[in-house]
């Protein structure tokens, strides 16, 4: 499976990624004490066989279908139908509920058909043979899915009863056995159809599919072209017209139908035995078919192409009032007769057979194995569950089959860059494990843009997934910090309520300020509001900026008071005191005296605390700039003190 991997004595090493498995060739041989010898011989052997081959890592993944562009519509639209179904009125009982569910089923099928159409268009319009092959395969897969779904709809969702059951099955066959369509078209569009060599084939097709009117119409053409057979034609036509079929309305009971049918059957029998059609083998074979003669029907194998077509035809002409539970017997024998031991049943055949046998679980199981992704089984099972048809079939983690399949399907969606959003909704509707699966998966979505992160966050917040919210905010904060976007980092860490990180970033801001003399992201800092209290450093940052603002607005006394509080209330870190004191200088040098005596004493005390208690006293003294600063401060403080004492000592008005 893994191409190019050397099948010699190499082993596979692997690891799980969020959605995929990594596989790489290696040779295990850890050198534990005592196995060094083993390890070395192992790797030497490996080296001897052409070690250069071992440098590749394969990324392997299940379920690649989500990447097929044309299937995107399928996933999106079926998501809409799914959601509609989950929210639909449970209170509707009986018939109306059933009608509703059948409509849902039909909607799913029409989505499949639409997708088939698109896929077909794509196949036709592409020139790349490989792609074409791919598309064609997809078309046949989708077609098979629709075939199965349709049958399930008839048997399980609608649960058609004897009578209508046959009609539905006829519709089903007519819709899905299309191999003969081109032949039919060819004959019908020719100038004189009755002369066409395939004329009788087409008539047979119509008869086999129970399309009496169309068969009679064609036969009339033959009759006008061949007046000699007019008599035979009239009788056959009459028989075909009179054939009793189940009706959809309640106009007749089954018993009535059976009686009528019995009479009609006997009439056909008489005509056949009288040799009425002896001279025209085609018409005779049609009569035999009408009588449900298995051999006659089987002769037309090529026109039916499948055993289930054969089954329905058989039922039409021998047991039109077949009951649902009787289907299994006819189905099995039909398949056996049709395949006749020449070929063995394919997976599709087994799935359909399981459906005819009303083994729903079997159908789902077989489909899960055969199909390459969980889409089909997940949605079908969900629908069947809503029809209350699945008993709670407990799997090991105690959740039922519906949930199991939905979890698998939704998990698969998460590796896609945009389809993951659909996955969220599916998880929401898995009552047991949906939430925890969502938690595990949503953390793994790459947060490539801020928008995406916000989207993910909103989803988490809506569902009160606080851990995930915090985690995501922290990741975004770290990312922003790495890219030097301090403002963004700060707002993310506030949102994450991450005090430690906020402190870190505030420090960075302050450092920046010291180096450049100005703040970045002023808007953010100015509007911190109560979130300022998240961390002490952040509070300081906010207040410090406020100080600058006050200063800018020339509200000096307030600024002065704030500045002092920053130090005395220990909001400011010691490392910053020097800067603050330096900031105080211009205030001290103002013409107006701003700091009161008491405030000045406080400032002086702060300065002394700073210089005295400083363990780097030596460094302090050695640094000329620092010493000068300290000197200047002392001078300014002293001068201010002098002025303020005088001012405060002066009595007003004297």
């Amino acid at each position: 499976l893994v191409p190019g991997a050397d099948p010699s004595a190499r082993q596979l090493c692997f690891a799980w990624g969020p959605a995929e498995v990594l596989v790489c060739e290696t040779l295990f041989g850890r050198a534990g004490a005592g196995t060094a010898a083993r390890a070395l011989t192992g790797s030497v052997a490996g080296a001897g066989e052409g070690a250069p081959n071992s440098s590749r890592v394969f990324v392997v993944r299940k379920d690649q279908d989500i990447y097929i562009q044309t299937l995107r519509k399928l996933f999106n639209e079926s998501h809409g139908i799914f959601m509609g179904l989950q929210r639909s009125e449970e209170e509707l009982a009986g018939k109306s509920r059933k009608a509703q569910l059948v409509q849902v089923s039909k909607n799913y099928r029409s989505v499949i058909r639409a997708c088939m159409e698109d896929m077909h268009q794509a196949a036709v319009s592409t020139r790349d043979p490989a792609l074409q092959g791919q598309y064609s395969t997809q078309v046949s897969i989708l077609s098979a899915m629709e075939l199965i779904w349709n049958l399930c709809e008839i048997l399980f969702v609608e649960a058609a009863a004897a009578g209508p059951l046959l009609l539905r099955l006829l519709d089903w066959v007519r819709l899905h056995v299309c191999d003969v369509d081109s032949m039919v078209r060819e004959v019908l569009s020719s100038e004189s159809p009755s002369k066409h060599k395939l004329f009788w084939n087409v008539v047979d097709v119509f008869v086999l599919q129970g399309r009496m009117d169309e068969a009679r119409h064609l036969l009339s053409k033959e009759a006008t072209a061949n007046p000699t057979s007019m008599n035979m034609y009239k009788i056959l036509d009459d028989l075909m017209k009179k054939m009793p079929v189940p009706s959809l309305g309640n106009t007749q009971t089954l018993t009535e139908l059976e009686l009528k049918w019995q009479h009609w059957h006997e009439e056909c029998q008489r005509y056949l035995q009288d040799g009425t059609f002896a001279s025209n083998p085609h018409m005779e074979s049609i009569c035999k078919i009408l009588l449900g003669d298995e051999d006659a029907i089987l002769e037309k194998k090529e026109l039916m192409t499948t055993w289930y077509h054969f089954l329905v035809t058989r039922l039409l002409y021998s047991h039109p009032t077949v009951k649902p539970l009787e289907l299994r017997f006819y189905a099995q024998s039909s398949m056996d007769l049709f395949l006749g031991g020449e070929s063995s049943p394919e997976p599709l055949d087994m799935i359909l057979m399981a459906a005819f046998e009303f083994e729903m679980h079997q159908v789902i199981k077989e489909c899960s194995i055969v199909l390459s992704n969980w889409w089909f089984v997940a949605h079908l099972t969900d629908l069947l569950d809503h029809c209350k048809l699945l008993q709670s079939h407990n799997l090991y983690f105690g959740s039922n089959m519906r949930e199991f399949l939905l979890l698998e399907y939704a998990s698969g969606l998460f590796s896609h860059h945009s389809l993951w959003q659909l996955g969220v909704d599916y998880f929401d509707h898995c009552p047991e494990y949906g939430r925890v699966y969502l938690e595990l998966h949503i953390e793994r979505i790459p947060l490539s843009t801020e928008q995406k992160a916000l989207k993910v966050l909103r989803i988490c917040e809506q569902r009160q997934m606080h851990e995930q919210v915090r985690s995501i905010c922290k990741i975004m904060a770290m990312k922003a910090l790495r890219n030097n976007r301090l403002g963004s980092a700060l707002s993310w860490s506030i949102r994450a309520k991450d005090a430690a990180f906020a402190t870190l970033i505030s420090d960075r801001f302050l450092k920046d300020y010291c180096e450049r003399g100005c703040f970045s992201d002023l808007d953010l800092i100015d509007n911190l509001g109560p979130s300022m209290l998240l961390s002490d450093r952040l509070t300081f940052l906010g207040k410090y900026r406020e100080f600058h603002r006050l200063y800018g607005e020339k509200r000096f006394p307030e600024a002065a008071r704030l500045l002092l509080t920053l130090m005395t209330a220990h909001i400011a870190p010691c490392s910053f005191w020097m800067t603050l004191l330096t900031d105080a200088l211009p205030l001290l040098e103002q013409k107006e005296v701003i700091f009161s005596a008491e405030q000045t004493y406080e400032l002086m005390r702060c300065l002394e605390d700073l210089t005295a208690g400083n363990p780097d006293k030596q460094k302090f003294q050695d640094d000329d700039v620092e010493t000068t600063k300290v000197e200047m401060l002392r001078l300014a403080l002293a001068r201010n003190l002098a002025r303020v004492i005088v001012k405060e000592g002066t009595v007003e008005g004297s």
Partner: protein
Amino acid sequence: QVSVINTVDTSHEDMIHDAQMDYYGTRLATCSSDRSVKIFDVRNGGQILIADLRGHEGPVWQVAWAHPMYGNILASCSYDRKVIIWKEENGTWEKTYEYTGHDSSVNSVCWAPHDYGLILACGSSDGAISLLSYTGDGQWEVKKISNAHTIGCNAVSWAPAVVPGSLIEQPSGQKPNYIKRFASGGCDNLVKIWKEEDGQWKEEQKLEAHSDWVRDVAWAPSIGLPTSTIASCSQDGRVFIWTCDDASGTSWSPKLLHKFNDVVWHVSWSITANILAVSGGDNKVTLWKESVDGLWACISDVNKGQGGVSAVTEGQQNEQ
């Protein structure tokens, strides 16, 4: 059904021992006997070499990505007895810490759940397990469990973070009291479970079932159930699934997954813990799932050079 979606040619000059995707599946780290650790960007099926990290002096055995909230951090361990922690700073990858506290090959590294902080467990052939905790400002605190396994420790794996009594509302902003646990496997054929109590690491449980060296242990992610699950594999060819049903974490019972014909080197859980991948003899990677009645069944094998994947029906045990 599995299909290969990308092949990364790492250009390692020697055997690759480990390859790990980062949290989001966007980057791939590989390490090799050629002593280097390489990091690739593998988005959209591409493979761009981002970094070629040199620093080890011997084969590098394992790499492990830390949680993205701590930045882009990768740990690697090697035969040269060193554990190196690499960090991406300003777009370049650099060594940010080197730990040399072991006396022989360090075989396994594993990052703890992000809720505990940035903590790395390292298992070594000298029988000890070290726990490196980041305390800030480029500083790491080391705690060592000596003689964790006689002869050597081959694997370490952390338990998922579960807050005890998590049904009770924690006052916001308060750090919940986590009980930290991890599992280790060693050359004494044992799997041990370690628990942190009052800042000290103590051996909580000894799980005996293997008859030869335990090569790998993997603690399954939590899906909200009160049970804990550990997978262990060994040179005796057996893979055991250990489950513990109660919150007290004292009674572990093993279940044999399978007896392979050859050494089983590696076990690993998918992120929702529903599939266990086993790398073992016969050059196969097999995927296992537990079915209704508690039996484990192989759901597929990734087989080298042997045609398609055979999807063995796991449902055979499903039907009653």
